[in-house]
């Protein structure tokens, strides 16, 4: 079972940031807001996807302590946009300001969940997180890490929204 964790405060944003991911997953999943995630959910989950949220919604940053379980979780996690920022912050990264909205070209220096070379990705964020050295960067532009993986764990993060033009990245993660 895949656990899909939403980070959005407004329920109407489920249709924009969560439902597209649920449609790609096509495997048994349950979806919960981060404030509702219980120990049993984490135990049952084979993998976790943490979704993004809207530009104006930064509640998840105030509530970062609610994600403390991430550091102990030993199964694959994929953080998308807000999800990637959460992972970075928990591992000691710093939150930095950078607004990117729309299509951008990013280059993957190594294969990352099936992605290679130059990709046109959809960005929707006001912030990003600098990652500590226990993470390896797979794509970077202007010093901003766009895709990372923990060196010893199966923790992945992407700053862009793969549900828009890189749906296969999510399918590859589900297959892990």
């Amino acid at each position: 079972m895949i656990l899909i964790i939403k980070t959005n405060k407004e329920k109407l944003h489920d249709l924009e940031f969560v439902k597209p991911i649920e449609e790609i997953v096509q495997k048994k999943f349950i979806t919960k807001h981060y404030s509702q995630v219980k120990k049993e959910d984490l135990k049952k989950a084979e993998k976790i996807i943490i979704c993004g949220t809207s530009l104006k919604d930064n509640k998840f940053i105030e509530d970062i302590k609610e994600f403390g379980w991430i550091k102990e979780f030993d199964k694959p996690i994929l953080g998308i946009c807000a999800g990637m920022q959460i992972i970075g912050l928990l591992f000691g990264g710093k939150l930095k300001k950078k607004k990117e909205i729309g299509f951008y070209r990013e280059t993957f220096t190594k294969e990352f969940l099936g992605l290679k070379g130059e990709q046109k990705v959809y960005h929707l964020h006001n912030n990003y997180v600098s990652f500590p050295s226990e993470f390896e960067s797979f794509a970077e532009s202007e010093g901003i890490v766009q895709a990372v993986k923990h060196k010893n764990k199966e923790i992945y993060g992407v700053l862009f929204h793969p549900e828009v033009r890189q749906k296969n990245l999510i399918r590859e993660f589900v297959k892990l």
Partner: protein
Amino acid sequence: MKLGVLFSGGKDSVYATYLAKKFGHEISCLISVVSENKESYMFHTPSIKKAERQTEVMGIPFLSQKTKGKKEIELEDLEKAIKKAIKDYRIEGVVTGAIQSVYQASRIQKICDKLNIECFNPLWQKNEEEYLSELIKNKFEIILVGVFAYPLDEKWLGKKIDKNFIKEIEKLNKKYQIHVAGEGGEFETFVLNCPLFKRGLKVMDKKILKEGENSFRMEVEVE
């Protein structure tokens, strides 16, 4: 939350309005940017004049803003309209009917970000077959008012989106890559009735205009 919907009168903006209301939000106004340019980059033009009739049967205030329809001026005019909606109707967010268009969605996101309000795209990345079925299930009465891609022709104008339409358009999708929901601009729609309307609209008069080899519009008078 008090929301304003970017409204064209076509299926996407009406369904986005329906979803925002269903999720408990108050629709404070419907915002239309009326482009004098029929090839507008941002806004659907053919049925926009009739959009006002729809807002009347929904009982929601209508805020319209004219634009010459030049690429970046359109965006300035859209921003003006949203600013007016914030001032006059105290909206805290904007809803759009964007499905796939990153061009459209990202420009509206930028305006909302600049004006410090929320942006909602409840149809974002929606599966097109599922979307059309949902419209039928939720009793949306929708007709085609413009066709702009071969092999669609004037015979398609006025057709209702129903189960037969879905079958036919799926065949064209396989053979000619016509997008099932018209996202590629292959066709444009007008909503005659839906659960948001206090009463349905009727087509009283229609005029078919040929605008190019594979481009036809139907101007309708509704009552």
